[in-house]
């Protein structure tokens, strides 16, 4: 079991200001700074932020909830298809579409969560896989609605709030995605520090004991799973709205795998791990993919093996170790 010390000590009230809190501004300052300097790379930046959102959603279910899943693409894809279909057939307002897709994915997470969350381990893994596979097959065969393996195209999105048109260079898409990511991050940040989030820490570490002290374990897991699914749905919807196309690959096993890889690469159960993991993954994919699409698979595969075997906390864990060493105290001292 992972020691509880990975979370910030609960004794410190969240309100009191400490200089170290300024670190929280860093990723956002970077994101805004990049907006002004990265001409021509706004599309890549948007893509990275969408994957960050997806990886944070997985962190909620898998990292904090301890729900072992290989089917999170189900919610990503559901959100993407829902947003795309909603924009084509009902209304092309982006925020409305985002809301509908988020609710749809959340509802899907709630229903499937109620069905499968009494199981554990490999069975749960297989059930999440089966759900994603079911949706994949459904999307593949409902050609009239989803476009099948040609993908869903022809999505036209109205200006955000009626003011900001999605431009050719993706600047609007960048800021739009950044804002949505920020809202979801704040929600996630407070949820994992709430009593509800704490009870999930307990469930992950010893579900029997939590049940014994009267925690409704199953409901807590379902709630977290639904929240995580809704967030993944938002990520999918953003993908649909900013790229204007939804492919079957959004529901693939590979997509579920890739997002888990990002999360663990960065370090699970820290929210920011998803930021680092997704950023590095997408950039490596972009750079190595330019040489050969298979070099990035080799690099990522190799990184995964090394990280799992030698650095269990992911890249954020390595950063923590280095910082602690610079401060002259090892992790062990911190623990005691």
């Amino acid at each position, binding site marked *: 079991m992972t020691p509880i010390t990975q979370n910030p000590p609960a004794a410190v009230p969240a309100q009191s200001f400490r200089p170290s809190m300024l670190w929280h501004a860093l990723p956002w300052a970077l994101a805004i700074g990049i907006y002004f300097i990265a001409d021509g790379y706004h599309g890549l930046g948007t893509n990275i932020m969408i994957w960050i959102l997806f990886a944070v959603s997985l962190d909620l279910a898998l990292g904090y909830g301890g729900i*072992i899943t290989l089917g999170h693409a189900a919610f990503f894809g559901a959100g993407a298809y829902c947003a795309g279909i909603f924009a084509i057939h009902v209304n092309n307002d982006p925020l409305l579409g985002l809301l509908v897709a988020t609710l749809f994915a959340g509802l899907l997470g709630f229903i499937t969560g109620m069905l499968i969350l009494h199981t554990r381990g490999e069975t749960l893994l*297989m059930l999440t896989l*089966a759900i994603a596979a079911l949706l994949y097959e459904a999307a593949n065969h409902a050609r009239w609605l989803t476009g099948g393996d040609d993908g869903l195209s022809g999505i036209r999105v109205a200006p955000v709030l009626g003011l900001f048109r999605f431009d050719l260079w993706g600047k609007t898409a960048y800021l739009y995605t950044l804002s949505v990511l920020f809202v979801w991050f704040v929600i996630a940040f407070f949820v994992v520090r709430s009593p509800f989030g704490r009870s999930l820490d307990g469930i992950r570490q010893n579900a029997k004991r939590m049940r014994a002290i009267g925690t409704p374990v199953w409901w807590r897991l379902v709630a977290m799973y639904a929240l995580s699914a809704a967030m993944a749905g938002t990520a999918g919807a953003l993908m649909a709205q900013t790229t204007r196309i939804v492919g079957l690959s959004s529901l693939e096993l590979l997509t579920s795998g890739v997002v888990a890889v990002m999360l663990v690469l960065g370090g699970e159960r820290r929210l920011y791990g998803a930021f680092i993991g997704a950023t590095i993954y997408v950039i490596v994919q972009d750079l190595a993919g330019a040489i050969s699409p298979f070099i990035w698979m080799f690099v990522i595969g190799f990184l995964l093996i090394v990280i*799992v*075997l030698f650095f269990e906390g992911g890249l954020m864990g390595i950063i923590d170790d280095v910082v602690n060493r610079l401060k002259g105290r090892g992790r062990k001292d911190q623990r005691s």
Partner: protein
Amino acid sequence: MTQFLTILLDGTSYGMVLFIISVGLTVTMGLMRVVNLAHGAFAMIGGYIATVLVLKLGVPFLLATVLAAIAAGILGGLAEITVYRPLYRKGELPQVLLTIGLCFVAIAALTFFVGPTPLPAIVPAWLDQMVDIGFRLYPAYRLFLIVVGGLLAFIVWLIIERSLFGARLRAAVDDPQMARSVGMDVSRMFTITFVGGCALAGFGGAVGAGVLPLEPFYALRYLVYFLIVVAVGGMGSFRGSLVAALAIGIIDTAGRYTVPQFGGFLLYLLVFALLLWRPNGLLPPKSVA
């Protein structure tokens, strides 16, 4: 009637390939409690080696499949000793990720050495013909798969049910701690079983190339099927994996032939329902039942 028998034969031959590949996964997942998503990679490597041997070096088909099995077994043994062993003590997530990592590396390596295009199926001339089986002409290759699968099932059954090693293996699956405390070298058993399972997978990947076409993403594409066999049959259950593999082969074939508009939907729905109804599979071994 003819269609029914055709589905039955096609499904059985397909199920036999699934069985040959998955039986090793069932035993290793049951024995070691490790979520091994890289099993398909060993089947893929076996298939690639056999194909390259046949096409580039002109090795006879049967010899090539046996060599492929040996190579996959050796690679499996190396992987077990180096990366799987530290993994047994870790949680499911690290296991999932490391084995996905292995899949990625295998996919990248095979693409680098062989190329990204799907490989042609290697079916030798003596199998590439139709045989009269009474009610219709039927491909000899598929009959061959059924015979080979049945033979292998019998051999594996002999080893597991009738040999001392098999008795120990069953004991270790049912209660690894007790097996250890009565003096069995469980970790050596892990290695031997893993090698055997990977060799079978490599063989299955090689002979089954006509049913499960070889391409770089083979390891992930068919992984779901192998995992379904394990989960539906019950982890660690040899009989369960045979029943599950044949059932999946026949149901999937029946679904694709009779209601093609649903494709694999039917199969996944059944698996989903079955796992909700019996979370430990159809025939789980005693330790989990």
